[in-house]
């Protein structure tokens, strides 16, 4: 059941440039377990959209199936949403994006939804550099079906039934980089300070922007043995880079000292500033990103921040040279060759 959030709020809430206050970006009241990491991410999404002055109806939210995939109900109730089938959100998002290149596509998935049943579609959405934000709310388990291990569960961690996970875990971030993803970031649901700028940067990225967010499942994965539990992550988090997203319209200098930060020019002219907390860090270099991830993994540390970005990213529409006008707006005159052309075709087939 979906609880309807009481509509009337504080009238003096600050407004963004479009004149909307933050509650305009909220969704229905969450029915997830109290304390679920996914809710924190939803809250960050609400805030990011509010601060970025996004027209909610110009954004489409898509998801698969899972607790994580339910969250689109809990943010942006003025956006169209599509809760598709398990593991297949990427293809639905691809079709939607092809139909109308002018909307923002915001995809939410889970680690089960992406790393198991959805692996093929995930890989190929990356390969096509589909212009979308793709968040995995990663809790290392199947929350909705009551806590089985997912393919991102760390080897050796325990699930609720006390069983130890025996398989090597899939590292979605390094896999995405390996596959040529043009924007790869990691964060933690409890770290809104970091999540917010990453979300903003992702929404501005003209291509596939992947954010792998560790998001503890309080019900099934918050036991001591699990490396995806809240406490574990808090202790082992290793923020190698903080991102500060600076839209061009109001450029401000970064808060970080020269020498510790690196600006990356985004395709739309905006910048991402990265502060280099890790040694030898180069967000434009795939191999160094992979290396950093490996080394963190070996130290059981979780590397967060913007790990890799390709500022020259060209999305699917560029690759296949779709016309600029959204395809769903083309009129009959623009797409139907008409009877005269058909006569010629008939002649050619005699």
């Amino acid at each position, binding site marked *: 059941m979906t609880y309807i959030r009481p509509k009337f709020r504080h009238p003096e809430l600050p407004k963004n440039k479009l004149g909307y206050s933050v509650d305009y970006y909220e969704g229905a009241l969450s029915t997830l377990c109290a304390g679920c990491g996914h809710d924190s991410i939803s809250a960050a999404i609400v805030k990011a959209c509010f601060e970025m002055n996004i027209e909610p109806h110009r954004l489409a939210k898509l998801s698969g199936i899972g607790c994580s995939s339910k969250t689109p109900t809990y943010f942006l109730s003025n*956006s169209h949403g599509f809760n*598709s089938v398990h593991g297949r959100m990427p*293809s639905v998002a691809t079709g939607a994006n092809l139909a109308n290149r002018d909307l923002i596509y915001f995809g939410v998935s889970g680690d089960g939804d992406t790393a198991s049943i959805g692996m093929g579609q995930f890989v190929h959405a990356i390969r096509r550099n589909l212009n979308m934000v793709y968040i995995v709310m990663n809790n290392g388990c199947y929350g909705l079906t009551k806590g089985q291990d997912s393919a991102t569960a760390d080897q050796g961690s325990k699930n609720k039934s006390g069983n130890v996970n025996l398989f090597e875990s899939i590292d979605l971030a390094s896999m995405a980089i390996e596959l040529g993803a043009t924007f790869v970031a990691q964060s933690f649901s409890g770290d809104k300070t970091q999540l917010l700028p990453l979300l903003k940067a992702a929404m501005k990225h003209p291509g596939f922007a992947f954010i792998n967010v560790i998001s503890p499942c309080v019900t099934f994965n918050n036991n001591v043995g699990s490396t995806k539990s809240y406490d574990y992550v808090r202790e082992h988090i290793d923020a190698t880079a903080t991102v500060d997203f600076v839209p061009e319209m109001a450029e401000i200098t970064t808060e970080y000292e020269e020498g510790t930060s690196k600006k990356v020019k985004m395709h739309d002219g905006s910048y991402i500033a990265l502060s280099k907390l890790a040694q030898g860090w180069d967000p434009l270099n795939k191999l160094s990103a992979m290396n950093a991830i490996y080394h963190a993994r070996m130290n059981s540390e979780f590397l967060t921040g913007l790990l890799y970005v390709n500022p020259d990213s060209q999305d699917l529409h560029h690759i296949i040279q779709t016309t600029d006008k959204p395809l769903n707006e083309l009129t009959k005159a623009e797409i139907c060759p008409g009877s005269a052309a058909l006569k010629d075709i*008939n002649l050619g087939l005699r």
Partner: protein
Amino acid sequence: MMNDVASVKPGGYFMYDSTKKLHAEYIRPDINYLGIPLMQMCNENYSDPRQRQLFKNIIYVGALSALLDIEFNVFEDLLAEQFKGKEKLIPSNIKALNLGIDYVKANFTYPLDIRVERRNLIGDSIMIDGNSACGLGAVYAGATVAAWYPITPSTSVVEAFSSYADEFRTDKITGKRNVAIVQAEDELAAIGMVIGANWNGARSFTATSGPGLSLMNEFLGLAYFAEVPAVLIDVQRTGPSTGMPTRTQQSDILEAAYASHGDTKHILLFPATPKECFDQTVDAFDLAEELQTPVIMLTDLDLGMNDHVSPPFQWDDNREYKRGKVLNAEMLEKMNRFGRYLDVDNDGIAYRTYPGTHPSKGSFFTRGTSRDEYAAYTEDGAAYKRNVDRLIKKWNTAKNMVPPPQLYQEKNQHKYGMFFFGTSQYAAEEAMDLLKEKKIGVDSIRIKAFPFNQTVEDFINSHEKVFVIEQNRDAQMKSLLMIEMGANPEKLISVLNYDGMPITADNIMNQISAHLSSAPKEAVAAI
């Protein structure tokens, strides 16, 4: 080989490889034998075993051409087309052809009394395969997004769409295209993309064959239940499983009609000619959008891949695309509360909106879970029931929207009826003549769509027996007639062919007359 010999009509010719002597059991007194030592000729002329195998067929074709007096330049043209880019392979093929021709010239009286001649009897008819016609139809239908995964025999549907799009949808200066065509990673992704694009207001389709259709089951159920349009062209091949990918059949009917778990059913179209492929592809998009549901067109390998003579394509420039019940910003502005699944017009079809239409009105959540009239998730049994009952109402509405059947007589007048669809038309029409010659009177109906409408029901009701002609083993169309119309199974006599070859007129005629002569006359009269 026994079957081959048996299949020759009296007075006909049987051509065989005479390298080895023909066994006595293969000798029929009533037919002519033409022995050509194909294997021996190959062995003499080629050393490589693979070549020996390959050129045997070509020698055979050469011999045939001499016997039937086929113009030689027809072959030259064909070879040039076949080996474009590999011209060096042409001379060896020409040589093989000539081996066959020379043998005939040296050993037989040629040409035979049966000939192949260039004629011009088809008026303004055209020659084209069904897949190209579907591809062209999709261009005219205004499809802008195609997603597919290659599979024989459907591959050329999207390939044709793509090459017509090169011509008609590409800006000659910028190279930009008014179309997006994506080769998906598999059929699950292809249908997912089609659903995503249609949800977002673009006309989108995919083409596949049996195995792909099986993989699309889950998504088809989503589109049915969430009420998202989708167009799917299934070019049927011989199943089950991988089956015979290069042979024809009409055996995906049950799978297509009820694809997906739960109470799900889908609109089907059955074209019989390239022209109908063109027309029905356009219709399919109208129907899918008007009914907000998947429409599956069932063609087959024979229609899809082989050239057929067809009436020329036609397009009425006044024809508008029927985009169905879609609310724009203006309409939404005027509305009080938008209910995505409200049956406002009492026809089972609710209004939808595209994403991005209006800043504060019209947004809703599309989902495969149950919902109320306002698209909110619910597990309320009553709301669930209202929803699925409305889908049945929509289904009934569809009956009068899909292409009606073709009747071959003004009034049903005979005791017996003949019922067919798709490519069985060619043989069935011929069979009508054969039956007439035998003084067996039948009325005929060719259906073009599922669900069936009243005309189909009347046809069944007004005949004592109806011969249902289909190209599958399990009488799948007959099943639909029983399930959907409650047709009495005793009335429905199956005429089946499922060996991978198109059904023939003789076959139909024989099965029908065999049934009629074996059926006890009294029993028939008593029904």
